[in-house]
């Protein structure tokens, strides 16, 4: 934080306060809402006519919804990575990144839960999970850990926000009236006293410690939805670690993209500095290498043996129908980022932004590849079904709902950033005080 040394308290507050949408912000939000509406209409059609509007059929019984779900769960892991691990490890440059990653975590986990309801054939029977739930089913484990993670993440975001809300309440001019009421409701009890601060600090530490195992659980359990079956490509003991490492990678990529976007939109160059991008770049290299390592385990070791059940699945990925997507996900999602980020110039904000997008897009397709091709290789031959059952390409309803959910997640982040500071004002002031002391 070399540059922010000269900043005054008023300047920091002024810089970090949430800002009204400019024209670009309005257009951005309108586009997101439009996507959400199209998705909502597609979901209405799905409710009316049934899952027949999707192109999922008896063999490919899980499609883009489930891969989207896995993607959301993966990206939501970043909240725990940046906030909790960095805090416990006392990483000094974490302040401008924590709030962003918590916001990403909250929005992603919300849409993970929503998209799994979209995938259900009988969403109105959701409560059966509680009235007839059987603890031996990995789905129930997922319900438990995802709701736990959601609560901890929300609480963590809230607790870290309290002093900032207090600060915003004191600066009345910029904030619109109706939201002032909400701010008061959220944080009027906060008195800025040291004993309150002590409690808050304790709470954050406890939350940070608890969120790490829960975060590992959400993605490990999600991987078990696949790994508890006998299907080639899913029947793997590597799956938990493979999913968690992938989740850290895509989450970090997502944070880099958001860092760049907020820095540009809110003019935060003095807070999110090149140094932050440089550090995150190094992180990304490490995480890409880690994910690559698990990919080698996941694909090359079965390919060495080429068991009959795995062979058709693996050849379809390596050189068959799914090869372009597979190599795209491997190259764009992992290998090219590693090479770009090894160079100092590659870790500048703009190249980092592009690499971040590559990582996220690659990760999305990677999730698609984990779900769909496996289902096209059942253990008994695919016969006696209409020809359309032999292939899977999502219908427009599936695309709309999936894009709508992605837009919805971005919309939540946008709205949160509209009403709450994307960088903790309180923490930045504190850091500043420490610097000058």
């Amino acid at each position, binding site marked *: 934080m070399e540059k922010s040394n000269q900043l005054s308290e008023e300047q920091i507050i002024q810089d970090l306060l949430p800002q009204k949408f400019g024209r670009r912000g309005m257009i951005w939000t309108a586009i997101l809402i439009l996507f959400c509406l199209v998705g909502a209409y597609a979901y209405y059609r799905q409710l009316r*006519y*049934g*899952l*027949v509007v*999707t192109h*999922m*059929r*008896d*063999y490919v*019984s*899980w499609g883009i919804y489930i891969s989207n779900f896995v993607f959301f769960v993966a990206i939501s892991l970043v909240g725990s990575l940046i906030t909790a691990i960095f805090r416990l490890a006392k990483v000094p440059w974490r302040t401008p990144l924590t709030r962003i990653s918590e916001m990403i975590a909250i929005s992603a986990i919300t849409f993970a839960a929503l998209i799994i309801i979209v*995938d*259900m*054939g*009988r*969403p109105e*029977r*959701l409560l*059966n*999970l509680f009235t*007839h*739930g*059987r603890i*031996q*089913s*990995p*789905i*129930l484990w997922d*319900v438990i850990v995802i709701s736990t993670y959601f609560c901890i993440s929300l609480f963590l975001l809230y607790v870290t926000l309290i002093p900032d809300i207090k600060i915003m309440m004191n600066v009345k001019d910029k904030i619109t009236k109706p939201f002032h009421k909400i701010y008061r409701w959220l944080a009027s009890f906060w008195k800025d006293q040291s004993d309150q601060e002590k409690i808050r600090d304790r709470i954050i530490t406890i939350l940070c410690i608890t969120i790490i195992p829960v975060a590992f659980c959400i993605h490990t359990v999600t991987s078990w*939805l*696949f790994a*508890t*079956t*006998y*299907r080639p490509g*899913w029947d793997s003991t590597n799956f938990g670690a493979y999913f968690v490492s992938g989740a850290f990678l895509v989450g970090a990529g997502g944070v880099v993209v958001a860092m760049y976007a907020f820095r540009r939109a809110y003019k935060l160059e003095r807070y999110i500095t090149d140094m932050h991008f440089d550090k995150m770049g190094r992180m990304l290299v490490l995480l890409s290498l880690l994910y690559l390592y698990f990919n080698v385990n996941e694909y090359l070791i079965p390919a060495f043996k080429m068991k*009959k059940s795995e062979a*058709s699945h693996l050849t379809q990925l390596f050189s068959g129908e799914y090869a372009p997507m597979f190599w795209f996900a491997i190259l764009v999602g992992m290998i090219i980022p590693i090479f770009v980020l090894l160079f100092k110039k590659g870790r500048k904000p703009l190249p980092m932004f592009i690499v971040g997008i590559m990582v996220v897009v690659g990760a999305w397709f990677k999730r698609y590849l984990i779900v769909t091709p496996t*289902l096209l*290789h*059942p*253990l*008994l*031959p*695919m*016969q*006696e*079904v*209409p*020809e359309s*059952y*032999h292939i899977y390409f999502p219908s427009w309803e599936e695309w709309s709902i999936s894009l709508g959910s992605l837009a919805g997640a971005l919309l939540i982040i946008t709205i949160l950033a509209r009403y709450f500071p994307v960088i903790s004002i309180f923490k930045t002031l504190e850091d500043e005080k420490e610097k000058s002391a």
Partner: protein
Amino acid sequence: MSCKCNKEEGCQNNNSRREFLLSGLAATMVAVGCSDKTSPFIPEETIALTGEKVKLLSVDGEVIEIDKAYLKPVPDITHLTNKQEREGMAGKKFVMVIDLSRCKNLKKCQSACNHAHQVHPGQNWVKVLSMDDADHSAPYWQPTTCMHCDEPPCVKVCPVDATFKRQDGIVLIDSNRCIGCRFCMAACPYTTRVFNWEDPIQAVVTDNSMPQENMDSKQHYSCETSLPQKKGTVGKCDFCPDMIRKGELPHCVSACPNGVFMFGDMNEDAVTNGAETYRFSDLIKDKAGYRLMEDLGTKPSVYYLPPVNRSFPFESGLENQLPADQMNHSK
């Protein structure tokens, strides 16, 4: 199917009644007042005659004709409770033996099953797969049902106990509870499960004499008949426990003209295809019976007898094969 007849009841054995029964509304027709003598059973209210006459066979063996308006449906079986359906039949362990040497891909099993369970075309519960295990091995036809595993992977993963294993060995689905997550479909290594992606077809196959909504609301759902099927839930071969309770064989077993399927109770150590009955243990021992994917540890209740000394050459079944599957011979 048995019919109970007494003085006031008649049995009508035409197509409309069969459809009537098959569409899940188990009912017999009761003709009231079929003789010209004044009967004490004539209801108080006057019935508007339709003018349409129905022929019935009286207990004396006479064919009598009465107006259709006098027919009214009466349920012939008392419904089992959900609990009874989930528990299954005490002291039984049902088992199926499929003799691959007798199968020539006639698919009579499939059409009987599809008809009885109102299965969507293309979502067959019974599939006849053309198998060829290796490059130089002999191809054969393999009818595939639900394996009714003793360690069912589908039951393990179901989050709401909608699919369950009964004491008689049958794995069933409770479509009133299924949330449609399709985890069981992913978990089943035999890919035997199908999903009601759209409205089930029983809306189409209804008896003409009754208005459709009336029919749907009256039709009692049973896990044992798997009817009426419900949109957004999973379906699969159920071993026809409703037939077993009547003392009859599952539809696929009785439909097969070649006696490929044999069904029975392992505790009685007997299986039958309707025409021949075998001691189960001897049959498996003598013909080297086996189960599919034994290495997975799922312990299926369906046994296969290897395709040796075949009744038909493999080629004789090719004409019944779907064009798409001719390319996709085996995996």
